[in-house]
């Protein structure tokens, strides 16, 4: 079992390596970069640009640059951002934290709602609850994240109940903890709802079909025949059985945490990785873009790894059969 886990982790590391090479190669083929923009500025002489290039080590051949970059990454350094004039790492970590905060809360909300709603739909299969739910999920699914974000923004502006962006609105220095907490919560509310609304349709469909499959299985029939009360039946018997297929879905959800919120963060001005990568693209700041790509890839890989491990642990059949 340990060897399987180790193999899986090793596999993920290899993939991460491959991703980094790929990302680096891709971005190095940029026909232009930050310095081209600089060059166009008549106030900066070509010599300055050239010396800046040397300073940032951009005159070295490709493999050398990759190795240097990879080495620094291993130390937690992600290179230097030209436009922010700071090490990328300092930009990255707190943005990543914000993204994770947002995505985790949204996922928790989405899963909670999806589980309850999905079970409800499965129980009343074919009834009006089921049909109207499916129609509602279809509409939600068809709505782009973009639109959901914009509509919530509209809500915020019209009602004034929520702030329209950012993470805090108060001076953190001279306010108490509970005020700060409330402030962040209020700012979090809209992005979390936006993300959750985007994620729920897919989740609820899977929960519903998994529950239906389980509810129709013989052992549930038998349990019902024994007179086990309904709620106990669902929570103690049906859900655990349905959890198999749901666990891989959970893994995907976790893996998507890093990349899920990109657009919503931009639209609702939440200071996470999303706005960072957009600015990086607009400013041709290669290190920033590459670092965010790597980070979200890392999240994805870790999530998938986690999902596989969860599956191994949860399903005894897979353990018995082998890799």
């Amino acid at each position, binding site marked *: 079992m340990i060897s399987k886990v180790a193999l899986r982790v090793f596999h993920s590391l290899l*993939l*991460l390596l*491959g*991703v980094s090479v*790929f*990302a680096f190669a*891709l*971005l190095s*083929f*940029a*026909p*232009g970069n930050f310095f081209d923009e600089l060059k166009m500025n008549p106030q900066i002489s070509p010599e300055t640009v050239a010396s800046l290039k040397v300073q940032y080590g951009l005159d070295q051949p490709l493999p050398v640059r990759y190795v240097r970059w990879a080495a620094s990454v291993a130390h937690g350094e992600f290179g230097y951002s030209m436009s922010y004039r700071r090490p990328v790492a300092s930009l990255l970590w707190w943005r990543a934290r914000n993204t994770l905060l947002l995505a985790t809360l949204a996922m928790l909300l989405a899963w909670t709602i999806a589980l309850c709603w999905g079970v409800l739909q499965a129980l009343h299969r074919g009834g009006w609850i089921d049909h109207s739910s499916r129609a509602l999920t*279809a*509409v939600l*699914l*068809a*709505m*782009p994240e*973009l*639109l959901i974000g*914009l509509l919530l*923004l*509209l809500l915020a*502006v*019209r009602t004034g109940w929520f702030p329209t962006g950012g993470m805090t609105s108060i001076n953190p220095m001279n306010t108490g903890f509970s005020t700060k907490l409330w402030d962040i919560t209020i700012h979090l509310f809209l992005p979390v709802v936006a993300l959750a609304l985007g994620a729920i349709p897919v989740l609820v469909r899977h929960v519903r079909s998994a529950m239906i499959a389980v509810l129709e299985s013989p052992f549930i029939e038998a349990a019902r025949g024994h007179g086990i009360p309904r709620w106990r039946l669902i929570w103690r018997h049906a859900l655990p059985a349905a959890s198999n297929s749901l666990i891989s879905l959970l893994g995907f959800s976790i893996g*998507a945490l*890093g*990349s899920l919120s*990109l*657009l919503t963060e*931009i*639209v609702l001005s939440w200071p996470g990785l999303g706005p960072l*990568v*957009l600015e*990086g*693209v*607009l400013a*041709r700041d*290669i290190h920033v*873009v*590459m670092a*965010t*790509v790597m980070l*979200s*890839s890392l*999240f*994805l*890989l870790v999530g*998938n790894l986690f999902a596989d491990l969860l599956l191994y642990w949860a399903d005894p059949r897979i353990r018995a059969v082998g890799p």
Partner: protein
Amino acid sequence: MSNSRRTTLLISLLVALHLPVILAGFFAPYDYALQDRDLPFAPPSRLHFVDQTGAFHLRPFVYAWKQSPLGDAYEEDQTRMFNLRLFVTGAPYAAVGVWTSRLHLFGVEAPARVFVFGTDGFGRDEFSRALYGGRISLLAGFLGAAVALLAGGALGIVAGYYGKWLDTVVMRLVELFLALPWLYLLFAVRAVLPLRIKTTDAFLLFIGVVGLVGWARPARLVRGLVLSAKERNFVLAARAMGASELHILRWHVLPQTYRTILTMAALLVPQFILAEVTLSFLGLGVGEPIPSWGNLLTELQKYNVLVSYWWMYLPAVMLVVLFLAYYWASETLEERFATVSS
């Protein structure tokens, strides 16, 4: 309702949604770049059947918009009625290839204009822009999906059929590409290129990138199908009859993949349309003055537009309706193919 009736309904719905966009020139009353600086952010024209005197007219008509005396809103100029006409002659547009036409489905007499979706900040007809913009977004979605499916399908077939090291290489690549979050990758590739590029370049680029990013999942699915088809007895039987590998591929293996590819297409096309819309929305895709649903929605990021001008949301509504249709299509396809055993 019965299966075949549902299918007919679905197909007609899809055609009805796509036709106005494909034949944008005919359905749109005006050119997408035609500005009217006197009418920024005008609301949609109101269609009337009854005039001020209370008389009923069979033919609907509109009033022109004019600025109210206070200058902060629009009111109808009721001095003149403009009848809504069908099949009018208007600005020329390229109908098919080089053949130009001047026929539009509907319009009103100059100097008034009929604004089905209102106008944007430059006084351009949103409805026309939405139709032309839809063309770009739809085309991007279709072509992107086509590239992803062709590339993915081809690689999947090669990997599944010829197996061994080829299969291993392709599958490792698939894993690699699946480990990259596609939106970020899209951004990354977009970052690699110059910020301001020609629309045609941006378009081709988008299709290339989406194909680069999107081939992995189709490849894996197709490979699985090919692998299982390869082992089937009827393939063995054909080989025993002396069939060449090419023949077997064509007659027995490939047909097993068609259904899955079609179902995948119904899922991928909306996904890629959305990708194009997202990119354009953020200013990284198709740019002014060429409309795309994405850059039509960019306006909504401005506070005043978001709050006051509800008609600017309408392209998004078109998008939602279209996606609902695709969603329904993919569900129908899945059901259809699941019931026919294979």
